[in-house]
């Protein structure tokens, strides 16, 4: 029986099961040349892993702190920019996004601050963060839920309609979801799986400006969904 290197390595790495593993084991037992080759492939792991793990330098002590500080600096800069431009550019982004999202589908013709409808409202009302819902044309995935400093419940979401995709946030007030920000993003590959791209800066800045607490735990979010998002303030 001929065993190629890839199969022999998979055997050495414990990646084969059942008959495939037994077949390689039998071939190795019967062939000293193959046994020698297997031994060499297996030895590489110890020759790399043991000395490199022993010699690995420790990370610099302040890496996490430095990362936190850098993120905080960037957030402060974005927040200032966002606040300065809030009445201008950000609203344009919102209006543009709403126009695109709202054209001819169940989302309706929306204005910034007007109550959301259609697929977006349904998803924000009823869908847990991480799950998705929507219509044939428009898919919406709530990403997380926070409580803003002023008590409003706010949800970040991702929406895909045709070839266009957006991330945004909406807050609940006076019994309806109202858009806070909407920014175009590259369409997530493979649907709604964890996006590898960063949250759009406009969305991060808008949510930071709400001065929210930590995202709600799933149980707390479920309770709000079950209660129809009826907090004390509404």
């Amino acid at each position, binding site marked *: 029986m001929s065993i190629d*290197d*890839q199969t022999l*390595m*998979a055997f050495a*790495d414990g*990646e084969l099961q059942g008959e495939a593993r037994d077949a390689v084991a039998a071939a190795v037992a019967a062939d000293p040349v193959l046994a*020698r*080759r297997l031994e*060499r*492939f297996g*030895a*590489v*792991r110890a*020759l*790399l*892993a*043991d*000395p*490199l*793990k*022993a*010699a*690995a*330098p*420790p*990370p*610099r002590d302040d*890496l*996490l702190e*430095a*990362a*936190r500080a*850098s*993120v905080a600096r*960037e957030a402060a800069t974005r927040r200032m920019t966002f606040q300065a431009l809030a009445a201008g550019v950000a609203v344009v982004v919102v209006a543009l996004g709403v126009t695109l999202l709202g054209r001819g589908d169940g989302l309706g013709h929306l204005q910034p601050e007007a109550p959301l409808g259609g697929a977006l409202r349904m998803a924000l009302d009823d869908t847990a*963060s*991480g799950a998705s819902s929507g219509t044939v044309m428009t898919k919406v995935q709530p*990403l*997380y839920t*926070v409580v803003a400093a002023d008590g409003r419940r706010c949800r*970040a979401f991702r929406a895909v309609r045709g070839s266009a995709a957006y991330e945004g946030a909406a807050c609940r007030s006076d019994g309806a979801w109202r858009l806070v920000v909407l920014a175009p993003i590259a369409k997530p590959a493979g649907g709604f799986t*964890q*996006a*590898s791209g*960063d*949250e759009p800066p406009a969305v*991060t800045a808008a*949510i930071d400006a709400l001065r929210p607490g*930590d*995202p709600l*735990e*799933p149980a707390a979010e479920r309770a709000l969904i079950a209660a129809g998002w009826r907090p004390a303030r509404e």
Partner: protein
Amino acid sequence: MGGEDIEARIAALIPRLHRFAWVLTGARADADDITQATLERALINKRTFTAETRLEAWVIRVARNLWLDQLRRKKVRAVPLDPVMLGQIHAVGAPDDGETRMEAGEAMRAVQALPPGQREIAVLVLVEGYTYQEAATALQVPIGTVMSRLSRARRALVDLLLGPEGEPAVVLAQGGEL
């Protein structure tokens, strides 16, 4: 998921993340830079992580992408043997064991001779102990790609670390095509 929970999960990954970056780059300063930049990305995105997010796969993928960006920026075609690499290995708190230090130097030199696509998989599987599926998930490549790249990498590593079959290793190859 609470912010403190997620930050604790991120913090717990730092040693492995840093070691991954160190073996990829062969330089502690580069490993620090890549680790810090990866942590920044993780903190920026932490609100989108859930209990189901494979956080380790996420940070490994981000670190690997940052490393590839760094390679492109530097337009490095080959990694010469870093004259301070062995010195760093001597200096960084490894057990005071000359043999271990020498082995680490040889191991690092062999890894650095691999092209990037083979190196990242060799580090994850052979150093970090990932299964083929875990490596495929972290790097978002098909498992067949993991197997074929690992196969090429391992044949090269065997020759570098053990010498051609039937002969003892005498001289380690230096540099290599990136």
